[in-house]
């Protein structure tokens, strides 16, 4: 027992020194840490409930995605049938129920049609399944049903793109240190510290930003527009700001250009000093735009964003420079928002906000102050109580619990863990429970001394017998913490992290470290009786 080798003492001291050192950068502002030469060391992240900011959980609209998927397939099938030699004449195309079905007019060509459609499907998943299931019904009708694997793969690739697009849009907003991560199959978590009003953020990521330019169908009658029944090859789209008064307009189905051909978009002003969005096309897009505007000079075309017409100006002259302006009922802010959305590309799938938590920075700062105050008072109260109850051994426990607080912070910084408000509660609780190990040990030492053992034996037995109990109690405690960590959402996780780290480090400080102190004293003082 009294044999405590020097290397062991040194390793304990070094381990504690490293832990405490790691915690230091988190106590001072970043600039100060840099001045001390420890700016490169990891710091603890503050959760949004402490720093203030917004947490959003976005969910992909999978219904919308499936719809888009079918629409895309419809386009591909039409093109493929037209391209066939001789072209295969199809009709009665339906996309209801998430499936695509069409009628082949010439019964003899059904097999050829199926063959061609099959080439459009892709293998997906590990099982060799394809993303679409092709079947012939009633010998003339071809039905394409998306497979489970196909839909999953489509969601997966759409989410990867969507996460990138969201990241670009938020970066463009100039917010600092946003966190954007994909969660599960169809969700994205966005955390922006310091953001007061998430309305702009939500407006920015809520827009799909699918931009299309289509020619206005001048042949459509006012009745057709009102009733929503479009002539063949056209469609009726909502147009809230229509100067004609009817909130809808008929446009050709085929887009002359889409947002995919944009290379840049900026907020600027038109000649009347109204905010607009200036866009530049890629060279191919610019050529296409030049051709269409030359052919259609004097006719109106519609600028469509996410299925709604924003404006439908006349083409006064051919637009040759590959540049154009989107005008509409914009404010500077909304024009800027649209420019950002267009620059960052369109979202492959619509995203909905399913969870939102916003904490103002003042409340966050209040919570930090309250948390620090509560932790300090808790620590001081516990320290006094322990010293009064166990004398020298209580003071050893106090040194251990104080070091433990620093070490927990150090480990958290090292793991890049996030400190949340429940995490601070976890701290306070850890202060309370960490001394439990010392209470167990000291009570045991008391008991053994009462049974007539000398100080050395009492301390030795106290540590030995209590260690077993401490180990078992901590394992069960850790089980609860682990479950919280695995199943808990953000805030609860923050609590679990502190609890788990605290359990691990407190065994070290409360058992190993205090034992070293106790043994050192025993050697130096050689007491005949313990005042415990």
């Amino acid at each position, binding site marked *: 027992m009294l044999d*405590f080798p020097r290397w062991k003492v040194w390793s304990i001291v070094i381990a504690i020194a490293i832990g405490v050192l790691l915690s230091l950068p988190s106590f001072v502002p970043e600039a100060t840490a840099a001045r001390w030469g420890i700016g490169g060391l990891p710091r603890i992240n503050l959760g949004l*409930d402490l720093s203030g900011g917004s947490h959003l959980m976005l*969910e992909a609209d999978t219904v919308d995605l499936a719809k888009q998927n079918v629409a895309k397939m419809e386009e591909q099938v039409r093109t493929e049938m037209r391209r066939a030699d001789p072209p295969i004449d199809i009709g009665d195309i339906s996309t209801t129920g998430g499936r695509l079905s069409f009628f082949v007019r010439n019964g003899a060509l059904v097999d050829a049609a199926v063959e061609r459609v099959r080439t459009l499907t892709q293998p997906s998943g590990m099982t060799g399944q394809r993303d679409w299931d092709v079947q012939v019904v009633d010998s003339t009708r071809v039905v394409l049903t998306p497979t489970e694997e196909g839909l999953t793969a489509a969601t997966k690739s759409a989410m990867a793109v969507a996460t990138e697009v969201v990241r670009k849009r938020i970066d463009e907003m100039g917010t600092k240190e946003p966190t954007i991560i994909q969660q599960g199959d169809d969700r994205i978590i966005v955390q922006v510290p310091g953001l007061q009003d998430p*309305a702009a953020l*939500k*407006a920015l990521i*809520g827009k799909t930003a699918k931009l299309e330019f289509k020619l206005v169908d001048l042949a459509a009658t006012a009745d057709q527009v009102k009733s929503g029944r479009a002539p063949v090859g056209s469609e009726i789209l909502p147009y809230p700001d229509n100067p004609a008064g009817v909130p809808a307009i008929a446009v050709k189905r085929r887009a002359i250009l889409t947002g995919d051909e944009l290379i840049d978009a900026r907020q600027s002003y038109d000649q009347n000093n109204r905010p607009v969005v200036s866009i530049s096309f890629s060279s191919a897009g610019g050529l296409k735009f030049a051709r269409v505007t030359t052919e259609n000079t004097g006719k109106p075309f519609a600028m469509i964003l996410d299925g709604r017409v924003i404006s439908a100006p006349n083409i006064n002259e051919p637009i040759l420079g590959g540049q154009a302006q989107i005008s509409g009922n914009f404010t500077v802010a909304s024009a800027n928002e649209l420019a950002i959305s267009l620059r960052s590309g369109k979202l492959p799938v619509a995203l*909905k*906000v*399913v*969870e*939102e938590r*916003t*904490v103002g920075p003042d*409340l966050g700062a209040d*919570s930090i102050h*309250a948390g620090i105050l*509560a*932790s300090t*008072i*808790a620590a001081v*109260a*516990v320290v006094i*109580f*322990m010293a*009064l*109850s*166990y*004398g020298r051994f209580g003071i050893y426990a106090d040194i251990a619990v104080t070091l433990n607080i620093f070490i927990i912070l150090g480990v958290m910084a090292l793991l890049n863990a996030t400190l949340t408000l429940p995490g*601070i*509660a976890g701290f*306070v*609780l850890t202060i*309370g*429970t960490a*001394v439990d190990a010392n*209470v167990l040990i000291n*009570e045991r030492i*008391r*008991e053994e001394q*009462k049974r007539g053992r000398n100080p050395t034996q009492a301390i030795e037995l106290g540590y*030995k017998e209590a*260690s077993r*109990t401490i*180990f*078992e*109690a901590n394992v*069960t*405690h850790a*089980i*609860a*913490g682990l479950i*919280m960590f695995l*199943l*808990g959402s953000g*805030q*609860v996780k923050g609590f679990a992290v502190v609890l788990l780290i605290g359990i691990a480090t407190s*065994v070290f400080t409360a058992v*190993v470290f205090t034992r070293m102190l106790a043994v050192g004293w025993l050697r130096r003082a050689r007491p005949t009786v313990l005042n*415990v």
Partner: protein
Amino acid sequence: MRLLKLVPDNTNIGFVRVRVVAFVITALLTIAAVGAFGARGLNLGVDFVGGLMVEAKFTAPPSLDKVRTNIDALGVGQGSLQQFGDPNSVSIRLPLPASTDEGANNAVVNKVSASLRKEFPGVTFPRYDTVSGKVSGELIRNGLLAVVLAVVGIAIFSWFRYEWQFGVSTFVAIVHDVLMTIGFFAITQMEFDLNIVAAVLTIIGYSINDKMVIDDRIRENMRKFRQMDMKALIDLSVNETLPRTVMTSLTIMLALASMLLFGGHVLRGFTAAMMLGIIVGTYSSVYVSSSLLITLGLQPAKFDAEPKDNARAGAERVGPRG
């Protein structure tokens, strides 16, 4: 210096003797807690029912009726108000707007804040949460799963390490602790949110910790005093560990009390739940779970073989061996 001793030396309280009374009181209290839960239900926060929560901080304590009239007039649904933390803060809960449009939630928040600002100048809105029905369903499921897993997982752990009686008595005592905590929330109608689930899990962890210490002493004494009567042995073990039980509960209560008083209003419910849990957990350790071992028929004779003792060799080597 004379040191503080909360439990005098050679304390010998007959815990086992009063076990029937304790069991009856415990059962009645548990039934009352379950009854309160059945009759009043829990005041579930937006985490679990979905909806919108806006925290409003007024410059002076507002009249809740006035705030309520103000919000009801907006036509954004039935609001539920609750004062929490300092008297100036009110949390306003509203159902989610029917429209799933992006702007709909914002519109409700803006409507509420604009209207309140007009009537109560200087009011600020430091926090708001929106949780959709789908997400809240998942949070409920995960929360329940976490509590069930924790209770079952730990009961299985103590069953494997000890005799089954220890597993069962721990399980019963912990179910009691959880039910009492839920009953407390049913009676006080304090908001039950995600943080409270974390509190319940912590209570489970702590309560087991407490029982583990006593169970461990019972096993130690069973090895030491093979001839001793089981009732006397359990009383001895509970009394021997009593100073530790009292000390630890007190230190944790000290820490929690400082959190309750100085830790800010956001975590007040969490801290209150935890304090209650510590009291209930300590009570069930001393009066319920150890006495229950006798009712379950724990026999000292079964300990002769000691097959599981080797498993502990590693545990003892936490510090260097003397």
